[in-house]
């Protein structure tokens, strides 16, 4: 039981001097002066702030591979196959109050692979232990410079934004034809019928058409954001969240009308041409225009202070405390379809909690404890420095890597590492 904290519920206001009882991995009671049942550990949180565990809707930590970049449509691949529970970034994210991440395919492909929603249960060697059980299926799409660069470097489509739209329409049309073929097969009463070719790529595209998979689309420019909504409208796809969407503010009314959501950076810009016309007021403009918005990190470094990133909307636009906190709790939960389980402190929800010294929106905030399913995974007072799960016995102890922002930001891939270029004689 967490005693006497200032509880930032996100949905039901701020409760001072309040206790939160956790039982069976769930939040079981919230109130003042609760009595802890026998044997329940009490944590004195006087003077501290309790908020829902932070959810990062765009992350590539805990993954052994990020892009299957050899094809422009790879809806058949699954990030769930490549979860890496050994990534120390997981612990460091916990130390920043994060309890869940959306492990995404990279942005090399127009249609990428299915992503995986994770709970940061650090310490296991079994990748399955990190999966957020029963979270809705999600998939990664990408528009703009990243997929077109891949096409240009290999002389294949798409090499321009026009080609991106064409590829999307072709893929969905192919999926409709595939579905028709299989529907015909299933309806066929002939006992000696032969199955059409099975194609996992098409199967997933059909699932998207039928609304079983939430689409998260890496995008930047206003025109491509608009384009996708039109394509989706034509094919009847409605569940859409834009990722990064630096120019989404320019088409905020359209997003609101479509019902699309957005997951954006607090203030990253200018690293590519398509983000040159960004504004740090993006999240504010979207929120004020009625678009459900979240702030993400897309970085193993930024994820550790998402609470600070969210606070930037109070500088760039005057969002209220609750609006700012929603950007990293309830809103990303909605975008991942897990808002019935996490994203706020309410009785019955999972006990994914983060305890802070100092209000989380203050720059001086220090996360001190993080719980996932009621289990404490981070405790600053008892922090052990070396959090590696496995150690390579042959690696030198002093293994220094100097921090380079680009290494952490996987969507910032500004160079396509080309196998062909490696051995090419055209230098």
């Amino acid at each position: 039981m967490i005693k006497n904290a200032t509880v930032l519920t996100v949905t039901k206001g701020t409760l001072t001097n309040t206790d939160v009882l956790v039982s069976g991995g769930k939040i079981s009671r919230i109130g003042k002066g609760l009595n802890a049942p026998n044997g329940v550990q009490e944590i004195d949180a006087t003077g501290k702030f309790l908020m829902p565990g932070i959810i990062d809707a765009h992350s590539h930590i805990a993954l052994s591979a990020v892009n299957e970049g050899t094809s422009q449509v790879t809806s058949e691949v699954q990030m769930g196959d490549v979860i890496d529970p050994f990534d120390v970034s997981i612990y460091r994210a916990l130390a920043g109050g994060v309890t869940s991440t959306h492990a995404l395919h990279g942005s090399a492909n127009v249609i990428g692979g299915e992503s995986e929603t994770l709970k940061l249960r650090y310490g296991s060697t079994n990748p399955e232990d990190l999966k957020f059980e029963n979270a809705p299926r999600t998939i990664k799409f990408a528009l703009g410079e990243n997929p077109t660069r891949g096409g240009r470097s290999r002389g294949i489509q798409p090499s321009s934004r026009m080609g991106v739209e064409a590829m999307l329409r072709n893929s969905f049309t192919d999926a409709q034809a595939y579905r028709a073929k299989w529907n015909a097969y299933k309806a066929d009463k002939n006992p000696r019928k032969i199955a059409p070719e099975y194609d996992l790529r098409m199967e997933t595209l059909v699932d998207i058409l039928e609304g079983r998979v939430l689409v998260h689309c890496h995008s930047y420019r206003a025109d491509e954001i608009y384009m996708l909504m039109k394509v989706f409208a034509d094919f009847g796809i409605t569940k859409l969240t834009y990722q990064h969407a630096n120019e989404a503010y320019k088409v905020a009314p359209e997003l609101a009308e479509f019902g699309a959501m957005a997951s954006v950076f607090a203030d990253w810009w200018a690293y590519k041409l398509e983000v040159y016309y960004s504004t740090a007021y993006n999240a504010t403009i979207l929120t004020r225009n009625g678009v459900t918005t979240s702030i993400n990190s897309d970085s193993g470094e930024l994820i550790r202070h998402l609470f600070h990133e969210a606070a930037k909307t109070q500088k760039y636009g005057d969002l209220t405390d609750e609006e700012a906190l929603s950007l990293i709790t309830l809103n990303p939960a909605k975008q991942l379809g897990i808002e019935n389980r996490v994203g706020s402190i309410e009785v019955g929800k999972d006990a994914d909690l983060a305890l802070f010294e100092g209000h989380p929106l203050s720059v001086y905030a220090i996360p001190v404890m993080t719980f996932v399913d009621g289990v404490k995974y981070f405790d600053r007072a008892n922090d052990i420095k070396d959090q590696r799960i496995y150690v390579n016995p042959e690696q030198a102890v002093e293994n220094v890597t100097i921090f380079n922002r680009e290494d952490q930001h996987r969507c910032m891939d500004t160079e396509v590492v080309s196998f062909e270029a490696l051995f090419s004689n055209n230098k």
Partner: protein
Amino acid sequence: MKGAMKRVFQLIIIAIMVPLLSFGQEDDQVMKARGGKFALTNAKIYTVTNGIIENGTLLINNGIIEAVGANVKIPADAEVIDCKGKEIYPGMIDSGTKLGLSEIESIAEANDFSESGDLTPQMQALSAVNPNSVSIPVTRVSGVTTVWTAPAGGVLPGTAATINLFGYTPDQMFAGSKGIIMNFPSSGGGGRFRRRSPEEQAKAVERALKTVNDAWDKAELYAKIEGSGDVRDYPEIEALVPVVKGSMALFIEVNAAKDILTALEWIKKRGYKNVVLTGVAEGWRVADKIAEAKVPVVAGPVQAIPTRDSDAYDAAYANPAIMHKAGVKVAIRTGDTENVRNLPYHAGFAAAYGMGKEEALKAITINAAQILGVSDQIGSIEVGKKANVFVSTGDPFETATKITNVFIDGYLIPMTSQQIRLYDEFLNRTPGVKKNDPAIQIKKK
């Protein structure tokens, strides 16, 4: 009739053209900076070197701080800005950026901080600064008034310069100091080759140091024999001579603990007096040695991943504080280009993780100015110093704090930038989703 109409028309135009005090602009009015005489009144003034004035006035005249105190007489012709409830600070100084040298990171043509070749210390960052970079207004409206902008890559990438973030030519921006950048041979980043031993790493560093030492040996020789007649015209080596003579500072980028120690020894052996270590990501491991050597450091970015997988998660946050407590003079940098505006947050994190607000503020004001060699002109609010100051609604480290006024070189800076203009245009877009909704349908044939 015509004349009267014209006058009415003119009055209307003038009315529209009255500059607004809030962000943004109306129609196509351009906001410009203004020089002159200003009195900032009723503010809490953080001088940094002379304590806090609870309710004070700051007088700016022709680019200089003319007076500061609780009882300052306000000249009649001064433009008065009432700062009641607000705070005034020296403009923040970022002692490590590439601001102005890179417009869009991914486009090679837009990047000017790195030249071909390993030994290019004569390359002048100052000349390549784009005074009209879109990032500059974006940065200064957040209270960062001055930055060190430096070349990168290779061993001796070039000469960096301190620039104020206001001016229409590099010379108008130049804030008074330059320095030679050197990337110290690094033992870090062993890559996937698992058999690389500490001995092999050390040997690699040794070999690289030889190249470095060759260059500096030549520079020392050059310093001795220049002017004697038979000296080769050698711009690369010439550029190093001011460091040898002590008239220009040498900024050494070095991060691994072992490398820092090697660098300190190297500095001692070569006897150069005016040296700064930058980066120092593992400075906390050898803080005592750095303090002993009396070498100042520029640390950052503070919001960074620890250098080793086995390090505590907050190693980078706590780094500046640990070095400071050991007696090292610390300035904080972002190391950034387009988001230098986040400098107060790097300092804020350093403050939260052991440095404390006061020291962290020094790290981005007076310490930075001292390390960059411009502390006679900026870095604190003192009479006679340049008027680089900003007015804020509260603690500038706190994320929600707004910066309301910025002065650079005594000019009141227009509180606008590309990002603010985009905010104004799109917060309530005209039209919204529906473009035209006429009552009468368009006639079709």
